[in-house]
């Protein structure tokens, strides 16, 4: 099997038509990003201001109804996109940066370094799901910034594993030996010659992790461990609406739907990127 999918050539679509999943994913995500950037234009009302009676049902004036404090749920959902998208980007940046660094060093040097680092990664993988993020939150204290750090840290093992396995193949190539022979320092080889060749699997994983980070981050805020009132954050909004679910279903339902669409879109995008760029990874 060749490594054609790993080279930069793989970035072209190779004349193939874009899959419906790719188009749907990109469209939904673009819409959310634009809404987040232009929130003041997209939101009809101030997300923090009481502009009506409490718990008014969805109507032509208040598309998603109003919450317990008479705030416009639609405007709050629009502003909530800012919090969640930033959370997704920062968590992915933390996880990808630290995880790739570990994977790079581990796979490049192998031997004792690899053994020690990978045992550490195994230990991190022994925490199911959000448990590792919970430990970090417990240590740092509940806040939305700490949720970003916690979620980012909890994804380190998956990045480290992925990058390490790519590096193990890449390091055997002749051009790496060549670079070493002419005396290029290890750090430069890793950054200049090894890391760029892990770009495609990294891109795919980061896309998938982006959605998961938003979902887990919202979950932590739902539990009261993340964003605090009156921040318009989706998970927190769902939590607040939970107490009045029987009387005002819209307060929880719409922010939850927002999370669902973003995560769904990133999963669609991630999977279609994977199929387009690296068919060998398809059986994930």
């Amino acid at each position, binding site marked *: 099997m060749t490594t054609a999918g790993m080279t930069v050539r793989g970035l072209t679509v190779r004349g193939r038509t874009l899959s419906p999943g790719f188009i749907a994913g990109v469209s939904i995500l673009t819409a959310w990003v634009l809404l987040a950037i232009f929130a003041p234009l997209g939101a009809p009302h101030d997300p923090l201001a009481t502009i009506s009676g409490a718990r008014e049902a969805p109507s032509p004036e208040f598309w998603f109804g109003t919450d317990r404090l008479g705030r416009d749920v639609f405007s709050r959902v629009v502003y909530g996109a800012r919090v969640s998208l930033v959370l997704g980007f920062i968590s992915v940046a933390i996880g990808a940066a630290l995880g790739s660094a570990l994977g790079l060093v581990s796979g490049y040097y192998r031997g004792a370094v690899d053994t020690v680092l990978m045992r550490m990664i195994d*230990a991190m993988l022994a*925490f199911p799901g959000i448990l590792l993020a*919970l430990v970090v939150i417990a240590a740092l204290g509940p806040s939305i910034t700490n949720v970003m750090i916690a979620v980012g840290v909890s994804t380190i093992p998956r990045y480290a594993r992925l990058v390490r396995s790519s590096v193990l193949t890449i390091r055997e190539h002749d051009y790496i030996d060549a670079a070493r022979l002419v005396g290029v320092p290890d750090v430069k080889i890793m950054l200049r010659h090894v890391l760029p060749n892990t770009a495609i699997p990294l891109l795919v994983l980061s896309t998938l992790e982006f959605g998961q980070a938003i979902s887990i981050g919202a979950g932590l805020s*739902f*539990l009261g*461990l993340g964003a605090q009132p009156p921040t318009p954050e989706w998970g927190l909004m769902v939590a607040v609406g939970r107490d009045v679910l*029987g009387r005002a279903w819209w307060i929880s*339902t719409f922010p939850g739907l927002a999370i669902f669409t973003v995560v*769904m879109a990133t999963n669609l995008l991630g999977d279609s990127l994977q199929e387009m760029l690296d068919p060998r990874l398809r*059986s994930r």
Partner: protein
Amino acid sequence: MLASYLARRLAQLAVVLFLVSVAVFSIMHALPGDPVQLMLSGAESGSVTPERQEQLREEMGLNDPLPVQYGRFLRGAVTADLGTSVRLRQPVLDLILDRLGSTLALSLGGILFAVAIGVTTGVLAALKRGSWIDGFSRILAYAGVSMPLFWLGLLLILVFSFWLPWFPPAGSEGLRSLVLPSLSLGLVSAGVIARLTRASLLEVLVEDYIRAAWAKGLPKRIVYLRHALRNALLPVLTMLGLQFGAMLAGAVVTETVFSRPGLGRLVVSAILWKDYPLVQGIVLFMATTYVVVNLLVDLLATRLDPRIRDGAPA
């Protein structure tokens, strides 16, 4: 052969558990934030003198060097002493055991729904490739990984408690109160299991022994259920170990959604109370349970797989 395999797996287990305990301990102690300050800011805020703080620090052994503290923590952990909850003033292990039953019932219920829905959908999707049920299995898988668990739980409450008054929206009395929380956990995993069952069954159906079974003239039902499905379910069994972890982690969210007492809700409260020994104890307990369950599932799969059972363990 099997004995040496078992010994190797147990040694690996010991290493992982040791590192898990180091990880929990060091994250909780090495990160910025003075536990005493954090704890007092929650519990006895305002009227805390420096003397009281110092006394508490001494009581909790926080003035000792970190390795000494870790040694004490580890010695406690292996002798089933996880310390005392600062807030509830009870041994952490007792608090865990009190709530373990409820969380286990929830997790097992979740696994049950996941298997029932996942395997059924997966088998039907494999047998009728390209049909509506195949499409449904794909949607189930996508929705499962995309839907926030807490939102799914609330939607189930909305539909099956408020609109159709079939199940209670909260609480932990009786089996009926277990249905919705287990279903929400199960649905999340059902999609993954359905896709795996489908892929695994399709792979098995082209094996030689299936062709042999057809050639013997066995009825369709026997070929599919006895010969194909039994072998196809082995990877699904291994997957169940991982899904059990998803159930434990999911319990953290689901128990809050459905107001059920359990380990998940206790750990969230412990974090909000800044009750360090309690958080540490529950997290260590959950991680250990997860690792041990996965080992057991792997061993079970090894026992059930004739290729491994009768030959050398892989």
